[in-house]
């Protein structure tokens, strides 16, 4: 017992600067279905991410303001209201206005396949549709999002 304890304590003490990935998970727009967003938040937490969850009915302005104050590396939006063609590009626009173009924007929800290329062209990094496994999203975040320098 004592051996394991001593070893563990020593191994965890020397601290090198270790950034954690910080991601804002938000629900913009008017739909009130936040189960998906909460499941993603939980899965990312379990993957070691610090998730800032901002709750329902966010405007793009609120999301970008929170992202700036929290200095996040990525933003994940859940949109089930059909307003994705407005909300995603508006968030991109605001990020650029605020010189936050390096923040990775991804999202998911009820989004027709036909809309996805347009969103990606506008700067959304990735759009997940129903049927995506949680593991795919976690893998994507781990692969694509790095803590900033």
């Amino acid at each position, binding site marked *: 017992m004592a051996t394991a304890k001593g070893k563990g304590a020593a191994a965890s003490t020397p601290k090198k600067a270790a950034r954690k990935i910080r991601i804002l998970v938000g629900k913009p727009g008017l739909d009130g279905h936040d189960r998906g967003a909460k499941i993603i938040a939980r899965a990312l*937490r379990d993957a070691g991410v610090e998730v800032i969850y901002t709750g329902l009915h966010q405007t793009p302005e609120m999301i970008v303001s929170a992202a700036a104050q*929290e200095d996040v590396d990525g933003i994940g939006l859940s949109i089930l209201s059909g307003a994705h063609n407005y909300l995603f590009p508006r968030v991109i626009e605001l990020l650029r206005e605020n010189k936050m173009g390096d923040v990775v924007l991804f999202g998911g929800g009820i989004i027709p396949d036909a809309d996805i290329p347009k969103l990606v062209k506008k700067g959304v990094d990735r759009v997940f549709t129903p049927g995506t496994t949680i593991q795919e999203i976690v893998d994507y975040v781990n692969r694509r999002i790095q803590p900033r320098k």
Partner: protein
Amino acid sequence: MTAVNAAGKEILAGNTRAAARLMRDLDDEIPAAIRTLKGLYRHTGRAYIIGVTGAPGSGKSTLVNRITTHLRTRGKSVGIVAIDPTSPFTGGAILGDRIRMQQHALDEGVFIKSLATRGHLGGLSRSTIDIVNVMDAMGKDIILIETVGVGQDEVEIVKVAHTNLVIVVPGLGDDIQAIKAGILEIADIFVVNKADRDGADKAQREIETMVSMGEYAEGDWKPPVLPTIAATDTGTAGLLDAVDRHREYIYQEKNLSRYLREKARVELVEILKTRLIGKAVADLDAHGLLDPLLADMAKKRMDPYSISEKVVNHSFAFHLLNAGKPGSGKGRGKRR
């Protein structure tokens, strides 16, 4: 005293983005961030700091939200540091305090920073004091620190904040809870939130009884017990009046100097703790001593007490501090 660097100047000029980045860097223990903070330290000490603590679900975030609204109508700028727990198993965290503070999301007079405890105990994160200092240097009038809400032993906050609010709710435990040491001893003001619930009067009476059992000399602060219903903004104005009264008390010369010294002590001790442990272990490792010592301990040929004594006795270089003559340097170290 270290001069303010470029990043520090931007923060003093009110650049919130620069402040946000510095806060993240401090939380992530980036060495350059410490350099910036050294320069900013001289510019701290103007903000009034309010600690908000209480059990999970007692309504801390909702109350912080209400307090913020009232402070904004009084024209005060507000910084909020909201702390949530890090998962001890994965290192991840869900920081959800913003959910209840959304009405301030677009108010430039309010800056909200969510922090994860990252293994630190005592209700705060290791970086909390640093981040409060940044908000102070930014010029925030009032800084609200919402603790993680573990409930019984958040003693660190008491040294950091000018005024400590302890939130209790009816129906959480019997009267034994009210006489437990720890959280109940740190309150400058007790708040019985969710006061429309059954048992609120009883909770209030129990705390009042407990408070009245304490010994107070003439002029001592005696914590008031105030009912609120944060969900409907009932009682917030009265709570802020009590904070004002406590502020007058804490700003009395003898109380203020005691508070400032205690706060300085916590700041120094916390930083020393992190630095010294890190340095001691790194030094042992650099000299190739760490692994052999651990192996000896594993085989019971050495004990950690003797090793620690040797390390502590040999590594303190107080002569270096004396050479620098603390308090008489070029800096403005003259604070009584």
